[in-house]
């Protein structure tokens, strides 16, 4: 097992280095000169902008720039924002807890909703609760998050005054964006839970449990859930990546000061160090989650190790 984990980590590191290179390259290919954008309407003579490009190291060969960036990153220095002159690491550290709170809450919500609706549907397979859940799930995955977000704001903030419309100051501010983020994933989780449940409900050991006259709550709670939980958890873990993607949109809708808002803003301004930092962070998060998931898989199903 230990060797398997080590091997996975060994693979994750070069992946991250490659990710960093791709991000770096992509940003340089995107049209838009960060120095030109830094000056408002009256750009100084080209010579002055060239000087600034030199100061920022933008005039060096691409590979040299990348090497310098990699070297600094490995020492924990993600550089300094072109715009605010603040260290990227501290800009990210400021916002990361909020995004983690958002994603964590959303994951919990998605899991709760997904499990309950999935179980409900499976227990009433083919009847109206099942159909209704399917319909809800479809609605869940087909609503764009920016639209859903505005609707939730209108309902819970403007009409009912239960929750704040925008901002990120308190945990209450995370509720609406987390819900927005969660619904699509809850729909997917509900579908998966349902299908796994239906299958397991049909298996012998469950039939036996029913036959023994065990109360339904116990059958579902002990026998079925235990078997559904593994694929479910795996899936929920994998959705972290999606949630991070979603955070880019949702944080903008709710004015939620997290990593996603920072990323979109930095990209628009071509603030390369900040954008790189944000993407790298997202990629690291994704790789870490995958690592954990793969290790879990390896624990549950030894066959996987040979495949990987």
């Amino acid at each position: 097992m230990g060797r398997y984990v080590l091997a996975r980590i060994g693979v994750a590191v070069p992946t991250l280095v490659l990710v960093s290179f791709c991000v770096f390259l992509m940003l340089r290919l995107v049209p838009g000169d960060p120095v030109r954008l830094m000056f408002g309407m009256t750009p100084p003579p080209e010579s002055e902008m060239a000087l600034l490009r030199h100061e920022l190291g933008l005039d060096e060969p691409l590979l040299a720039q990348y090497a310098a960036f990699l070297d600094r990153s490995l020492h924990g220095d993600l550089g300094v924002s072109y715009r605010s002159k603040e260290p990227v690491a501290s800009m990210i550290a400021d916002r990361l807890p909020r995004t983690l709170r958002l994603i964590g809450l959303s994951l919990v919500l998605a899991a709760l909703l997904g499990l309950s609706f999935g179980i409900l549907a499976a227990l009433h397979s083919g009847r109206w609760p099942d159909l209704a859940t399917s319909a809800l799930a479809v609605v869940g995955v087909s609503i764009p998050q920016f639209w859903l977000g505005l609707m939730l704001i209108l309902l819970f903030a403007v009409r009912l005054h239960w929750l704040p419309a925008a901002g990120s100051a308190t945990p209450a501010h995370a509720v609406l964006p987390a819900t927005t983020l969660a619904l699509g994933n809850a729909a997917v989780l509900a579908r998966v839970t349902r299908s796994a449940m239906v299958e397991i409900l049909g298996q012998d050991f469950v039939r036996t449990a029913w036959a023994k006259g065990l109360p339904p709550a116990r059958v579902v709670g002990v026998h079925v859930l235990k078997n559904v939980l593994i694929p479910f958890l795996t899936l929920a873990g994998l959705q972290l990546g999606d949630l991070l993607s979603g955070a880019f949109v949702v944080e903008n809708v709710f004015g939620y000061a997290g990593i996603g808002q920072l990323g979109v803003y930095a990209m628009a301004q071509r603030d390369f160090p900040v954008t790189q930092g944000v993407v790298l962070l997202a990629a690291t998060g994704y790789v870490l989650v995958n690592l954990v998931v793969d290790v879990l898989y390896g624990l549950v199903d030894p066959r996987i190790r040979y495949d990987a």
Partner: protein
Amino acid sequence: MVKKDASSSSPRPEGRRRARAAWRRRARLGVLAAALLLVLAACGGGPTAQAPSGSEAAPSEAAPVAGGTLTLAMTDEPDTLDPAHTVAGPSEGIFYFIYDTLVARTADGGFEGDLASDWSVSDDAKTWTFHLRPGLVFSNGDPLDADAVVFTFQRILDPATQAPSKGFLGPVESVEKVDDSTVVFHLAAPSALLLDNLAISYFGIVDPKAVQAEGDGYGRQPVGSGPFMLKEWATGDHITLVPNPNHKEFRSTVANKGRPYLDAVVFRIIPQVETQLAALESGEIDAALSVQGDKAELYQGKPGFQVVVNPASIGIEYIFFAMEKPASGESVYKPPFDDIRVRQAVGYALDVPGIIQAVLHGYAVRNCTPMPTGVFAYDPDLNQTYCYAQDTAKAGELLDAAGWTLGADGVRQKDGKPLHVEFWALDADKDVAQVIQSQLQAVGFQVDVKALDVATYVSTIGTSGMNLGLVNVGWSAPNILDIMATLGFGFGLYNRNGLPEALAKAGVTVDEAARRDAYVAAQKIILDDAAIIPLYSPEGISIASDKVMNFKFGPDSHITLPDVWLKR
């Protein structure tokens, strides 16, 4: 020497409309400003102190009540509060309240002393002397003297600072201390625009001790002498300002000479305007600073809210044509717009009042000149003489005469080639661009619209297949023409018919009447050649709760926060 003092700033006939804010300037020149200003670019300019129209709350006769926190929504977060390190609009929106400048704009468009009690200028307009008021201090009690002024400007002039605002100082070579209350600006060339620039809060005076103590951290720990000071900056969420106990108010445009009525002002950062309005309705914020016309229409007459609009504008939205500038000699138009008749046909094809009504919901002023309606040397006569009223028949005739004949598919052709043009616009201008597209197609153009983000637009426009472009430039001084003519693409390459010389002459003409004539002459050069098709000057709009009293915009199109108070 021309002696001026604080109280006798020169009145200008249309000057009151001229004063506008730097952050809007940035915003309006969406093109060159940071992309974060897209939304602002779409929103148009900001209101001024004069007569907000519409359902704005009646000017209250009630006595102001002190106390309370005003919460405002802004679209983008400032990148830093160090004026030497940014020209971004949102930052300037805060600078204005925490820093004071040497001179300030008056309501009638002139200048008055703010930190400077008075100033004088040498006959050659190359040496400017400013006398500081006595006893000035920063919010932390540090003295604000000639040393602080010299430090502020030398820091910006120092290439090592990499101050993006350096360019605004133009020919300023150095700033020198004469005595504790006197500083001299030495210019390499005469400038008629120094005061315009010094009044911008990019040139707010900073506390040298704080800058030296905080180093790179100063941008988040700013110290100025403005009516408010920074209390808290919660990254990405809000910025809180509180009254500065050491501030002294000298500006004639601020009625409240004492402490601001508000206990605190919170600027919430909410990127999406729809969310801002939801927050306004739920009572989380008291005002959305900058919104579009369709929202204003929605809130006109809505109980509990006020819409504050400024009819004057420092912005100009115009259509330009692709040009090329050879290494030497005159720049040339690229086909098919190398024929003036085709350029004029664009003017006649468009129903601009219709666009203003439909897309901007009436919140813009038709302007057929390159000079924004609120800027010095805007000429109503030119606006009459050179206006294109929509006349599709005339557009057709011009195109026929230029050899572009109508094909069976409704697209004009010449020598077998269709009249196809690629039309570039900022994403924020997408709606206007679509109407223009449809109106141009009605007279036989075939138009592809490209709606792009600011960064892509600026960086790729010069090298692309663009034939036609839409852009929005904003600036409070008449050198907006220089800015437009040097943008680096389209009309920004224009050097025909003696325009550069005409503009250079206007820029050094200190005498006001002569300067006005020089700028009018330059505008005529542009319009005679149909070098651009000016469309309109957009108006700025804010929406606030009706609890907010005295919610009005000052001469720099920032809310005069010291005068604002909250109804209980």
